């Protein structure tokens, strides 16, 4: 067993899988998470069920956490942040800051899995009124309600009769510089619409979209299921404004299929907020001198054929730190990053021998 561990930064799905991968390959890992709990966004944001297979989030995350929490090869540090780094691979010296102070660790390589943050709808170029109207909420707000097992209008506490999702909030918006599709929102909106149907059987459900992007099996598992089984209305057209009229929130925009403006009163509107690089991702890119690609995520060296290697030897990324990523992307990248990190150590050892 080599002396110097792999430092995994971020305890979300990618970080958990990366730490497990490193341990399974016979190396040590130190997993650092700034929050007091592991699980990343799915736990912190109280996701109800994971897209696309509808697994209970806590159950699925606990399973991932369980694989490393009793593993002697993985040293888990929650409530800690990486604040400084010296040297270069395979002999990095990193400083960890936690509640009791700072400590220095020697690590051989690093996997940055600091993920994303949800787009703040207050920065939207459209006028959606998230900070003005109680009944305009985000995907993450909706997840919390779904997790609690009851879906109601925030303003009245009553079951909504008409619910609309608006796609691409903060994604595909060149006005604000977010020139990317966040990949998951269409699937999550479809998933949530199906879940809402379960809680509010009589509701009219709408999803307003620019292009509906249900990748791979999501087409069948989420999109058609929502449409055929759960009677969700998909309307091609971007909504530009939401305002209040009496007790309703009025959704205004253009139905591009019909080629005409539309104005539809709703009880609730759910904004499908996209992904942006998290503060942690930005911080770690600065700390480790990792160049960002043009969209602001951490750049990798090999394009589509190498999604985890950065320009700094011995530093790898996994998950949404490198760009919008769904769970499958994140976990797959984590496996690749773990194998690359271990291969890097192995090569370093062989070079010394």
């Amino acid at each position: 067993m080599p002396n110097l561990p792999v430092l995994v930064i971020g305890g979300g799905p990618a970080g958990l899988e990366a730490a497990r991968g490193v341990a399974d390959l016979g190396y040590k890992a130190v997993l650092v998470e700034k929050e007091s709990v592991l699980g990343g966004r799915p736990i912190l944001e109280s996701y109800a069920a994971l897209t696309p297979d509808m697994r209970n989030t806590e159950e699925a995350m606990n399973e991932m956490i369980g694989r490393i929490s009793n593993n002697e090869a993985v040293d888990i540090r929650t409530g800690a942040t990486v604040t400084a780094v010296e040297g270069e691979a395979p002999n990095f010296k990193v400083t960890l800051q936690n509640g009791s102070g700072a400590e220095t660790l020697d690590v051989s390589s690093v996997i940055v899995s600091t993920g994303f943050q949800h787009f703040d709808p207050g920065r939207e170029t459209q006028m959606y009124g998230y900070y003005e109207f109680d009944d305009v909420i985000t995907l993450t707000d909706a997840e919390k309600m779904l997790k609690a097992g009851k879906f109601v209008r925030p303003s009245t506490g009553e079951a909504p009769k008409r619910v609309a999702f608006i796609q691409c909030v903060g994604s595909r918006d060149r006005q604000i510089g977010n020139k990317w599709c966040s990949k998951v929102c269409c699937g999550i909106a479809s998933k949530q619409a199906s879940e809402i149907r379960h809680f509010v059987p009589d509701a009219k459900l709408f999803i307003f979209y620019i292009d509906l992007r249900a990748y791979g099996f999501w087409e069948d598992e989420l999109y058609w299921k929502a449409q055929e089984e759960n009677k969700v209305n998909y309307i091609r057209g971007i909504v530009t404004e939401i305002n209040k009229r009496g007790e309703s929130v009025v959704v205004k925009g253009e139905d591009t299929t019909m080629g005409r403006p539309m104005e539809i009163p709703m009880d609730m509107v759910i904004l499908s907020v996209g992904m942006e690089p998290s503060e942690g991702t930005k911080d770690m890119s600065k700390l480790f001198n990792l160049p960002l690609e043009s969209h602001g995520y951490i750049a990798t060296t090999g394009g589509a054929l190498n999604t985890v290697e950065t320009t700094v030897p011995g530093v790898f990324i996994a998950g949404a730190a490198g760009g919008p990523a769904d769970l499958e992307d994140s976990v797959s990248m984590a496996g690749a990053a773990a194998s690359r990190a271990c291969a890097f150590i192995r090569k370093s050892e062989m070079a010394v021998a």
Partner: protein
Amino acid sequence: MSHASNGAPTVITPPKVAERIFKRQGNPEKEDYREQLFELEAKGELEVIRVPEPYVEVETKFGRKKKIPLEHTWHHKSCGQCGHIPGYPTSIFWLHRQFGFDYFDPKDQTSCTAWNYYASSTSNPPAQASIAVRNFSQAHVDGYFPFIHCGTSYGHYKETRDQIIHFPKLREQVRRIMDRLNMPFAFPEEIVHYSEWLHVMRDRIAERKVLDLSNVTVSVHPACHYHKLIPEDAIYNDDIYNGQRTSVVTGIAQALGAKVADYSNWHDCCGFGFSHILVNRDFSRSFAAIRKIERMKEEANPDLVLAHDTGCLTTLDKSQFATRAHNRKVGIPVMSDVQFAALAMGAHPYKVCQLHWHGVDNKPLLEKMGIDHEKAWAEFEEQAEKIKSGETQFMTWEEADA
């Protein structure tokens, strides 16, 4: 399907609006036109006209700071205002004079020609850009900073700025024209609309108000040219609409103590529609009356509509005359934010604000505001008689305040 517990479900509702705190994250990952202008200046392509001191820095939509000059301003007037809402520019000048601010009212300013561009498409990018640059360069030569009265000009100039920044060939064409005019190629650091100045002045104006406006309800119409074209350049305040809508117009109305009532078509165009008013007037009239005025009346029942653009004011006000003949539920006075502010500070309703040019009967509103319109009208007629008889050629500022 995921369920939280096996017992009775716990209701978790999202935080109410009062608990949702919006914090701007600073600049978005996109171009900053100011940096680009300074880069072009560094290359010797143009001269950037600096915002003169004193100025106030305000937050724009995404958190960039915008400098709004208080004085030393070159007043780029509006064709539509000077033509048929003359109390609009005079209210702007009157307020500047009340505060003792240095300003310049040029006689060699041209129209921005945006209406021509919108309605008939007879213009072209080099002509449009050259007209903008000639006006700006004239301001620079005169030693003042451009200050745009018209929302259409303001929006159009912002788009022109974008074209000038991004198209070297266009810059070359403009440069040749400016060379022939023997003028510099100058462009302002900021494109400033008068309503932004009014916004940053709102507390100082409120300090000097002479009317109690607490019983006056206004509904606000924001100009598309102001907040939808190049939206990142519009002013937003965290304490007005929670930072989610532009704060100009609403800010001054609130500062003056009036009640601002919301309505569901706030974001909608007034009906002017850039070109509709010129090429599809029936649509404009119907839209203004049915989508805006009637909706305001139904949902907010205001005493007054406040707007901050020539076209909006004209469309919202004058469209009510025709639609009233069809028994539509119209009849709300319309004026600009700056006329309202001037009235609040004691400007004469007819000599300065020239409210007799407006279409909808505003006498009940003036009574509610505590203005004796009969006395004011007699004073105005007396002044008009002096001009009619040849005793004087025009009304002076001193006579306007007499």
